[in-house]
C-alpha cells in the first residue's frame, strides 16, 4: 500500500516537474519567421499592420515581410526554397499552386489545423476546390476577386447614353461600345468604346465567361483536358474578335494597355477585376462605376481568382508552429475585414463577403462571386499567352476563329500534358 502510494506520489511529482518545465521553455526564445509577398502597395501596407497586431498578441514571434516584383516572384521562390533560403510563409497566386506543389515549394497544411470542414465552413466553394491538390490542402487566402464591367459615366453622357444605365447583355455591350468609340480623320481609334486586352483580364473573360455563355466549357472537371475546341468556343472567340475587326471599338494595347486607357479616359468601358478599385478611387476626375458582367443566352458567369498564402517546404519546428499561427491570423475574419478596407478585395469568407452586398463597387463584385469559376492553371503565364496569341492570330493574321481556337487548344493541351507527365 505504501509502495503504491509512493509510486503515485513519485509519478505525480514527476508530472508536476515536467509541467513546470514545459511552461518554462514556452515563451523563452523568440522565433523569427519571414513572409514573402509580391509588391502591391496596399497589400504591403495592410500586412505591415497585421504583423504589428500579430506580434502584439504573440510576443515571442517576430515576422519579417519581404516583397519582390510580380515578374520575378516565381523565379525568386524557385531559386531559394530548394536551397533552403526561402521564407516560412509566402503568398502565391491561386493559379500557381499546382506548379508550386509539384515543384515541392509548399508543404501540406496539417489536417488538424486546416481540416476539410474548416475550409467548407469558412470559405467560398471555389476556394476549397482550388487550394486542394491530390486531396490535400496547401494554402489559405485572405481575399478573393472577381470581374465586373467598368464604365466611364462622363463618356457615356457625351455619347448620349444614360450614365446610370450600363449594358446588361452582350448585345447591349456591343451596341454601346460602337456608340462610345471615337475616330480621327484617318479612321484610327482615338477613344475605345470597350478596351480589348487579352493580356489583362481579357483572356479570363473569354476563358471562363464567354465560352460558357456561348454554350461551351473551357476545361474538364479536373482541369486536365482542354474542351474549348468546339463550336461554342469558336463562336465565343469570334464574338470577341468581331468587336476588334468588325466593330472596331478597340484593340489590344491601344493607349498602351486597358488600365492606362481607362484611367486616362480614352476607353469608355473595360472588363477588369476588383483589385483595380483602390487605384481608380484615387483619381478624382474619373467618374466611374461597376456593373455585373453582361449576360448572354441567359447565362451568367464570372472568373474568380485569389492570392493565397502557403507554408514553404523548408519551414520546420518552432518556425513551423509560428508560421501556422501567422497563417491562421492573416486569414482570420478580422484580417479579412481589414484587407477589404485597405485593399478593396472581398473577404474569402462568404459570410463576411455577403455583409458587403450594399457597399458601393464592392457589392457588385460580390454578386459576381456567387456564380464565379476559378481556373486551375499549370502554367499561368504560358496559358495566358496561348489566348493572347489566339486572339492575335485572328485579328492580325486574319485566321478563322475556328482554326485559331483549334491550334490554341492543341498548344494548351500539350502544356497541361507536359506538366502532369
Amino acid at each position, binding site marked *: 500500500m505504501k509502495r503504491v502510494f509512493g509510486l503515485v506520489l513519485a509519478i505525480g511529482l514527476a508530472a508536476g516537474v515536467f509541467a513546470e518545465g514545459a511552461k518554462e521553455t514556452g515563451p523563452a526564445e523568440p522565433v523569427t519567421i519571414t513572409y514573402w509577398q509580391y509588391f*502591391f*502597395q496596399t497589400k504591403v501596407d495592410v500586412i505591415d499592420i497585421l504583423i504589428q497586431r500579430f506580434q502584439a498578441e504573440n510576443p515571442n514571434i517576430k515576422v519579417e515581410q519581404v516583397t519582390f*516584383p510580380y*515578374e520575378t516572384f516565381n523565379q*525568386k521562390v524557385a531559386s531559394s526554397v530548394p*536551397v533552403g533560403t526561402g521564407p516560412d510563409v509566402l503568398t502565391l497566386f491561386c493559379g500557381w499552386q499546382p506548379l508550386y506543389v509539384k515543384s515541392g515549394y509548399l508543404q501540406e497544411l496539417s489536417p488538424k489545423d486546416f481540416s476539410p470542414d474548416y475550409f467548407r465552413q469558412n470559405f467560398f466553394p471555389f476556394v476549397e476546390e482550388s487550394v486542394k491538390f491530390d486531396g490535400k490542402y496547401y494554402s489559405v487566402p485572405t481575399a478573393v476577386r472577381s470581374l465586373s464591367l467598368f464604365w466611364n459615366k462622363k463618356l457615356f453622357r457625351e455619347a448620349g447614353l444614360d450614365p446610370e444605365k450600363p449594358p446588361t447583355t452582350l448585345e447591349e455591350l456591343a451596341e454601346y461600345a460602337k456608340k462610345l468609340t471615337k475616330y480621327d480623320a484617318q479612321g484610327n481609334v482615338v477613344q475605345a468604346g470597350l478596351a480589348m486586352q487579352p493580356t489583362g483580364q481579357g483572356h479570363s473573360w473569354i476563358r471562363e465567361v464567354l465560352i460558357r455563355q456561348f454554350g461551351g466549357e473551357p476545361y474538364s472537371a479536373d482541369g486536365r483536358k482542354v474542351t474549348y475546341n468546339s463550336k461554342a468556343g469558336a463562336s465565343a472567340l469570334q464574338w470577341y474578335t468581331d468587336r476588334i475587326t468588325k466593330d472596331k471599338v478597340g484593340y489590344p494595347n491601344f493607349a498602351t494597355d486597358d488600365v492606362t486607357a481607362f*484611367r486616362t479616359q480614352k476607353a469608355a468601358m473595360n472588363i477588369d477585376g476588383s483589385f483595380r478599385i483602390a487605384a481608380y478611387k484615387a483619381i478624382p476626375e474619373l467618374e466611374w462605376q461597376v456593373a455585373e458582367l453582361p449576360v448572354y443566352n441567359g447565362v451568367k458567369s464570372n472568373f474568380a481568382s485569389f492570392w493565397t498564402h502557403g507554408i514553404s517546404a523548408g519551414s520546420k519546428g518552432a518556425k513551423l508552429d509560428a508560421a501556422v499561427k501567422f497563417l491562421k491570423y492573416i486569414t482570420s475574419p478580422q484580417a479579412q475585414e481589414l484587407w477589404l478596407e485597405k485593399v478593396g478585395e472581398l473577404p474569402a469568407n462568404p459570410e463576411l463577403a455577403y455583409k458587403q452586398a450594399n457597399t458601393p463597387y464592392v457589392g457588385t463584385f460580390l454578386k459576381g462571386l456567387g456564380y464565379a469559376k476559378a481556373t486551375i492553371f499549370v502554367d499561368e503565364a504560358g496559358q495566358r499567352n496561348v489566348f493572347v496569341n489566339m486572339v492575335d492570330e485572328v485579328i492580325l493574321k486574319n485566321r478563322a476563329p475556328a482554326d485559331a481556337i483549334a491550334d490554341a487548344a492543341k498548344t494548351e493541351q500539350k502544356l497541361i500534358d507536359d506538366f502532369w507527365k
Partner: protein
Amino acid sequence: MLRDVRRNTWIAYTLLTLLSIFMIFPFFWMLVSSFKDAEQIFKAAILPSNPTTANYRFLFFDRHSKFPLWFANSVMVAAATTGSVVLFDSLLGYTLAKFVFPGKKLIFLLIMSTLMIPTEMLVIPWYSLSITLKWVDSYWGIMFPGMMSAFGVFLMRQFSSTIPDELIDAARIDGQTEFRIFLTIILPLLGSALATLTIFNFIGNWNAFLWPLIIASGPAKFTLPVGLANFSGELGNEWHLIMAGATISMAPLILVFLIFQRKIIRGITLSGLKG
C-alpha cells in the same frame, strides 16, 4: 571644279544635319515629355502647356520611389567594377607586354579568345553558380562578371609596349620592387589610356542590362536600367514618369560624354583600328 566642291559641301551639310535631327529627336522628345504630367503626356501638343518638374520630384523624393536607390546602385557597381578593371587589366597588360616567360603567347590568345564567348551563354552557368554560392540578389553577384575585361587587357598591353624598357630597368637597378614599379612608374605613364579605359568601362557597366536583370530578384538590388525596365506599376505604364526616369538614367553619361568627348571618340577609333 570649285563650284562642284562647294555644291558637294552644301549637300553634305544638308544630309548631315538631317541625320542629326534623326539622331537627336528621340532625346528631345524624351526631355520634353518628362516635363508633362499624367494628363498632358497624352495630349497632341509637342511642348507641355504647363511644364512641371513633378515627375522628377516624384522620382527623387517620393517615399515610394526607388529611383535614388537604383541610381546609387548603378554608381556603386560601375565605380567598383571600373576600379577593378583599371587595376587588373593594366597589371595584366603590362605583364604581357614587358615580361618574358613561357606560355606568354598562349595566355594572351586565351584571354583574347574570351572576347568571342557571348554573354548570353555565360549568364546561365553564372546564375547557377550564384545560386550555389548564395550570390543571388547581392552586389557581388551583380559585379563579379565585370571585374576584368579582355578588351582592356588588349588596350593596356598595346600601350604598355610603348613604354621604354630603360625606365623600368633603371628603377629595378634602384632596387624598387616590381609592384612598386608598376604602381609608381607604369600606371602614371599609362594615364591617358587608363582614362579612356575608365570612361568606357564606366559607360558600359552603367548600361549593362541582361546580367543585372537576371541576378537581382528585388528592387533593392536593381541598377537604373533594370529599374526602368520594371517600372510599370499597378496603374499600367506611367509614361510621364518613364520619360523622366529615362532622362535621369542618361544624364550622368551625357555629362561624362561632354567632358571627355575626345577620349571617348579616341576609344571608339582605337577599338576599330586595332589592326
